[in-house]
């Protein structure tokens, strides 16, 4: 199997057949063996029925039904677990992506890239509700991670299967999956893709996304950049507060020596709190080492290694 196309669906009963037609149409022009994995994230409408109908008609269609609505990341993950292709393409189930872009994306992978991202040149979405949040989010992603992602929200993406399977997927990590990959040295490229306006149903995402992107980015960045720093990055803040502790202590002694009778409670308290902060951070840093050592996912193992010469 060359290619697995994974598409998560949630309440998209009308989109499912047109999308299937579009994919079949696009793939018939290409010379790949493929499977189409439709993940039903426990929709409330007839999505599952329509998908299963397709599976009955076409042996290349596989339908994965989830027990309850877990969200897009889980949907994709469940799809990946069932994918057997050497390459994986993901897409949204709302017909906004165009499967005819798959050919170009696969071309890029064959050129040696690990990931190829779509980049919606002419977006067909509301300016304020969708475009602005997405602009901010992309800017954040670029600046925090240093990876030049043009359109982190674009769902049409293609990966080498082995690149995906190294990574844990949880929470809303699917958005950042290419970025995580790129952070560990996977080569990636972006091509402009077509984008259509929504035909059926409602959009399910909105402004609340940015907050989540920020939080996810902070944790991701910390986890990825801290494993080789002293005390997992806590060391720096511990040293700073340690220095402040020393300064305030010295200052307090100085005041006590020179002006007997001067109220010392506040000064002493401040210095004690800074001392506590410094020590606790050191302890937490040690705890991080313990966790990391006993955990079974090592970040350095994820780094892409290139064997130059055997």
């Amino acid at each position: 199997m060359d290619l697995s196309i994974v598409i998560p669906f949630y309440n998209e009963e009308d989109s499912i057949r047109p999308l299937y037609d579009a994919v079949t149409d696009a793939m018939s022009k290409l010379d790949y063996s493929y499977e189409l994995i439709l993940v039903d994230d426990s929709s409330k409408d007839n999505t599952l029925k329509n998908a299963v109908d397709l599976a009955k008609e076409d042996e290349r269609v596989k339908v994965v039904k989830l027990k309850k609505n877990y969200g897009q990341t889980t949907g994709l993950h469940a799809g990946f677990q069932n994918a057997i292709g050497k390459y994986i393409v993901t897409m949204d189930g709302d017909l906004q992506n165009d499967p005819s872009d798959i050919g170009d994306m696969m071309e890029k992978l064959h050129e040696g890239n690990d990931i190829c991202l779509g980049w919606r040149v002419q977006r067909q979405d509301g300016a304020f509700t969708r475009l602005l949040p997405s602009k901010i989010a992309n800017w954040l992603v670029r600046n925090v991670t240093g990876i030049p992602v043009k359109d982190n929200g674009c769902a049409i993406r293609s990966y080498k299967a082995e690149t995906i399977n190294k990574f844990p997927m949880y929470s809303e990590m699917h958005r950042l999956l290419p970025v995580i990959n790129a952070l560990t040295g996977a080569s990636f490229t972006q091509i402009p893709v077509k984008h259509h306006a929504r035909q059926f149903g409602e959009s399910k995402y909105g402004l609340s996304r940015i907050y989540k992107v920020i939080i996810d980015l902070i944790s991701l960045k910390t986890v990825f950049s801290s494993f080789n720093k002293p005390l997992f990055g806590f060391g720096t803040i511990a040293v700073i507060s340690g220095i402040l502790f020393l300064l305030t202590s010295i200052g307090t002694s100085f005041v006590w020596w020179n002006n007997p009778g001067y109220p010392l409670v506040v000064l002493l308290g401040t210095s004690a709190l800074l001392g506590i902060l410094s020590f606790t951070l050191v302890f937490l840093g040690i705890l991080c080492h313990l966790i990391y050592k006993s955990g079974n996912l090592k970040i350095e193992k994820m780094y892409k290694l290139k064997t130059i010469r055997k």
Partner: protein
Amino acid sequence: MSKVYDLSAIVIYYQKYEYDEIKPLIESYKTNLDKTNLNYEIVFVIDGNMPEVLEEIKSIAQNNDNIKIIKLGRWFGDATSLQAGFEATEGKLIITLPSFQQVEADEIPKLVENLEGNDMVIGWRWPRIDGFLNNLQSKFFNYLIKAFIGTKFHDLKSNFRVFKREVLDNIYMYGDQDRFLPLWAWRLGYKVKEIKVKQHKTDFRQKLYPVKSYVTRGLELISLFFLIKFTKKPIRFFGSSGLIIFTLGSMIGLFLFIQRIFWDIPLADRPIVLVSILLIVFGILSFAIGLVGELIIFTHAKDIKDYIIEDVYQYPKKDDSNKKAS
């Protein structure tokens, strides 16, 4: 010798709790388990040191070949006992039965029948015959769960539950948290149904528990809330609260600083300075703990099983001539 069982009943005897006379209770369970027309076994778990219970169950077991007895070395708590009992069961369905007359035993067949189309069925004692005070307590407890976790169960203390084997295969229970099993099942995506069952007339309680047990319950609820809501994103909980506290502390600090600079109000004898610094320190620590949590999740993310694939539909063509893809 080895038989395939459809239904495994687990009866747990807790060292800490009361139990009713064993023989009549087991007899009534057996009569009603017979009515389900399923091939069943009974697994007894003795949680702790209860020699007289062990003797009596041994004597029951002598006449029946479908009884297993498991004795734990010391008191481990109800969920651990359940886990130990579960590992010894062979049935496709599991039913847990209390060691005291909590529910009329003739409700067993009804409970098992309702499993059709669900993954777990709980007996909801209704109408409750407990005293007013106990009713109020459990109402309050259930209300808290509804408010914090967002789902409603009416009777989490009911030990009268039947569920599919896969439910416990996918949920690890430990300690003394048996009553939260339905919540975990619901959270993972299993269909949990409560059906009204008759409460047994001797299951009447009118008492207040010792203060300690209320405190324990409250703490359990907090950790449950955290585990259910933020398991995969500890930083969303610790980080946000840390950020809020930190901002508050900094604002107080800034205000005091401005006062000091422009109005010349001395800081040295104002305890509020300490409050400001305390909040800042606490905020930083809270955020740091969130990051530690994030590291734990990240390094274990591959082992966390938090979703269930209900079914995979694939219909391979019978004849190979139709294979289009090449």
